[in-house]
């Protein structure tokens, strides 16, 4: 077991006791579920009318499909733009010129500490008033997601680059590459491999955050769900289904992240430095 073992290998007596506790725990959990179920039943939440649309209403799935597509669209655009912004910001923060470094640090720290909703509202409310052009809800959402996740991804990229052995940038300099070339041609491609798991985990965050689009009227999964609930009046059932859709997608992404991680551990083996806090560019 990888976890710290907080209890001994169990002998016959301990096994009996654990079994007893386990049975007790199951009883308590079942009791809680039963209480919740009774509450739901008393309030008529098990009536077939609330569930029938899931079976005999193809339109319901059409609507949810539209919402899901919009959710994935926003997440896709957001991811691509955020990675681009992240690379730019990370290079800026790693730059030796304070003219590039300071603004990058400021931008990263500001957008990481601001609520994403505020950024989305900025593009949706303030942008039209300040510049006289309305932005589509999708554009406002994607731009907000880009700024926030770009700042976070910049830090992921920076950590990836800093974790490379110092010999990489030294070797690049020794063959006469300029610093920009070193970053672009030598360090970034290697860092991408290391940071891929964190990047996929950030994608889960990004995907979840697209649901903020409902506030500005973007028809993603949750907003469509809200419209459907107004007709069917089954919020518990429908929002649980929506939650399950998100959970299914995000669990697969999480699976993907840990698969990549275990694959890397196998293929890169000892080539991956364990911890090199002052290696790489830190010294330069």
């Amino acid at each position, binding site marked *: 077991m990888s976890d710290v073992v907080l209890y001994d290998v169990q002998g016959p007596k301990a096994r009996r006791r654990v079994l007893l506790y386990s049975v007790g725990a199951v009883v308590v959990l079942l009791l809680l579920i039963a209480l919740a179920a009774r509450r739901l039943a008393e309030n008529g939440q098990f009536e077939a009318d609330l569930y029938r649309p899931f079976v005999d209403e193809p339109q319901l799935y059409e609507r949810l499909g539209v919402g899901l597509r919009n959710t994935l669209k926003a997440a896709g655009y957001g991811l691509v733009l955020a990675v681009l912004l992240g690379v730019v910001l990370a290079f800026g923060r790693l730059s030796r010129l304070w003219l590039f470094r300071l603004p990058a640090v400021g931008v990263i720290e500001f957008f990481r500490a*601001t609520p994403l909703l505020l950024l989305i509202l900025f593009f949706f409310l303030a942008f039209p008033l300040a510049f006289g052009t309305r932005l589509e809800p999708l554009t406002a959402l994607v731009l907000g997601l880009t700024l926030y996740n770009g700042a976070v991804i910049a830090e992921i990229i920076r950590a990836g680059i800093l974790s490379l052995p110092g010999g990489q940038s030294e070797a690049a300099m020794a063959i006469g590459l300029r610093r920009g070339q070193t970053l672009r041609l030598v360090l970034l491609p290697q860092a991408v491999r290391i940071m891929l798991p964190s990047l996929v985990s950030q994608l889960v965050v990004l995907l979840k955050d697209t649901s903020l689009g409902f506030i500005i009227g973007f028809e993603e999964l*949750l907003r469509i769900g809200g419209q459907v609930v107004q007709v069917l009046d089954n919020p*518990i059932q429908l929002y649980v289904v929506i*939650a399950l859709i998100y959970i299914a997608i995000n669990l697969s992404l999480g699976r993907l992240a840990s698969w990549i991680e275990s694959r890397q551990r196998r293929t890169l083996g000892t080539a991956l430095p364990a911890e090199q806090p002052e290696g790489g560019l830190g010294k330069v």
Partner: protein
Amino acid sequence: MDAVLDNLDVFVDGFTTTLTLTMLAAVGALVLGTLIAAMRVCPAPPLRWAGAGYVNAVRNTPLTVVFFLAVFGLPKVGVSTTFFRFAVVALTVYTAAFVAEAVRSGINSVASGQAEASRSVGMTFNQTLTLVVLPQAFRNIVPPLASVFIALLKNTSIASAFAVADATQNMQGLINANGSAVIWILTATALGYVALALGAAFLFGLLERSLTAAR
């Protein structure tokens, strides 16, 4: 600029609500999250599964969906209360999953000799966990807990969409009343959040320094 200075009390009111929301949900999430983390490391398998199920389900659900379930779902089973309390419930339930993960990683970071030593002096699982491992774990997890709570602070802004008069909702009210000063009002609110986040980071830094044991 004037729109900001003239309405300073609206900002203060909003951020007071934001902070209250954050504090209440933080305490709730700390208690619930620690309990779930304890479930995940205990010897009884059903409790471990229940804890893991909770964390996996909640971590992969958007906070907004948790809000929708609380605000529109709970009244359907006869629970009705203020939007503020619904917001506290939603934020607590959501943040607890992240606290649980942080606490569990802290438990794993405590040297295994500690648990072995406490077992060898005859402590039970509960004693090992509460008297030896958790106190050391909490020292190690101040930085990850700090980021969980700062994320919570930012997440409270979602409550503004559910009729809670927090900083973000007050901001929208001000924007509707003073359309021309929209940039100032937004910037002031954003800076308010940044200041609170930096302040929290600073306090957690102090806490970390005072708790870290010399090894």
